[in-house]
């Protein structure tokens, strides 16, 4: 395995965080902490940013987060929250597949976190799982520790099993469907929602309606990871075609036109909110400062795990919860770059009339080899298509509402 040494000129390596601070910029404290509980997975999804893309460092990383790292992470999170007087923090148990850590490990992590955090600070604890291991003992453990459950599901059986397969090639839909059935039947209050990665070969409305069959409180539709140097499927960089935009517009219309809201679709709701003048609460859209810290199985504090889709080494800060405070990560250029809003955007983005809504799209999707991350998203035409469509629909409805009230 060859690790390409990244040229020093790739932005944001050249971002002078000290100069920003001297001009009055202040970082936003982390609010959300992603704990990589388990560094392996029982599925072999071919689009996985952790295992199937450029960065292959997982091969030498610890399989499971050891006890002393769990303790250190909990201590650092508590210290950070206290120092910054936070009212609440969110912790996401993640991976790999976090449920492979086992019920006992999950219980220990939850207990450790609650014990370390001051009582006045609310803890929102969740797990994001591939859904194949939601058996009764694990569900009982999750319930006992008030851990909400997000499940990755790409649609019905045909859509889901395109990519989300075991290493043997067998699809995982049947196992996920069974897990969701147990979750919904026994622990409906734990069900947080579904994450669906888009494949434009799947019919959009059929995919969305397949997700609705599980009555999720929320879903999100994720663009597959790629960038200008390693394009996502179906996207030629610079091509004005909008395959993903068209796909999302079809789902949006189906969702938006329902007489009453069937589920929350996060990306659509954030774009609507931004179009009405609000601020985004998700890092894939808008200009809100990202307040997320990722802690790897070995305790390393990462810029953002999905940067593995860009190039090897993109996630590293050189910091570790065993030896360093979380505040130290706030000064890292890769973290600051995702907190400075418009100042992180390319000239192309700044000249675009929807840049305050789009925000340049999801940060990893802006990467271009030898230039870095100060580019439009490789999905720029798709995002523009979707935002313009949503803006138009909302404007039409608002105008109609205002006319009725005259």
């Amino acid at each position, binding site marked *: 395995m060859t690790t390409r040494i990244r040229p020093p000129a790739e932005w944001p390596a050249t971002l002078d965080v000290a100069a920003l601070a001297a001009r009055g910029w202040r970082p936003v404290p982390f609010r959300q902490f992603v704990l990589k509980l388990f560094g392996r997975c029982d599925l072999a999804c071919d689009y996985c940013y952790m295992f199937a893309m450029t960065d292959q460092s997982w091969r030498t990383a610890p399989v499971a987060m050891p006890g002393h790292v769990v303790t250190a992470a909990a201590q650092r999170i508590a210290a950070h929250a206290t120092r910054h007087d936070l009212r609440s923090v*969110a912790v996401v148990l993640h991976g790999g597949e976090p449920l492979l850590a086992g019920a006992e490990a999950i219980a220990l992590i939850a207990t450790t976190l609650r014990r370390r955090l001051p009582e006045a600070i609310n803890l929102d604890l969740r797990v994001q799982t591939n859904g194949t291991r939601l058996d009764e003992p694990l569900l009982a453990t999750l319930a006992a520790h008030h851990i909400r459950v*997000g499940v990755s599901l790409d649609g019905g059986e045909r859509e889901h099993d395109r990519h989300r397969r075991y290493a043997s090639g067998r699809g995982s839909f049947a196992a996920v469907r069974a897990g969701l059935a147990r979750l919904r039947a026994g622990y409906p209050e734990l069900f947080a929602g579904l994450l669906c990665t888009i494949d434009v070969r799947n019919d959009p409305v059929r995919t969305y309606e397949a997700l609705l069959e599980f009555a999720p409180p929320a879903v999100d539709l*994720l663009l597959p990871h790629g960038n200008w140097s390693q394009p996502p499927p179906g996207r030629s960089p610079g091509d004005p075609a909008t395959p993903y935009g068209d796909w999302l517009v079809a789902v949006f219309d189906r*969702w938006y036109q329902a007489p009453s*809201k069937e589920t929350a679709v996060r990306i659509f709701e954030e774009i609507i909110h931004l179009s009405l003048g609000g601020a985004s609460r998700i*890092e894939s859209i808008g200009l809100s400062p990202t307040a997320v810290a990722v802690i790897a199985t070995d305790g390393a504090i990462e810029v953002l795990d999905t940067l593995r889709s860009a190039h090897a080494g993109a996630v590293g800060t050189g910091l570790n919860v065993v030896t360093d405070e979380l505040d130290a990560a706030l000064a890292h250029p890769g973290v600051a770059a995702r907190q400075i809003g418009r100042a992180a955007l390319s000239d192309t983005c700044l000249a675009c009339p929807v840049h305050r809504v789009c925000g340049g799209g999801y940060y990893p999707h802006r990467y271009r080899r030898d230039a870095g991350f100060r580019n439009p998203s490789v999905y720029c035409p798709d995002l523009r298509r979707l935002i313009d469509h949503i*803006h138009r629909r*909302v404007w039409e409805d*608002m105008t109609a*509402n205002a006319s009725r009230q005259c």
Partner: protein
Amino acid sequence: MDQPSPPYESDLVDLTDMTLREVMAIDDSVLGQALRRLWREADDPEELVAGYTEAI
């Protein structure tokens, strides 16, 4: 570092004259819920930050 921004002209209807009662009376559609969220966040503008995409 900060560059001048082109004016972002919104074509949206000005909500200034809509009362809270009128907002709350809007149906349970997506738009209705979106407007209520806007009013809620205006009332309680805790620092708005962006969260992690790979979890829900």
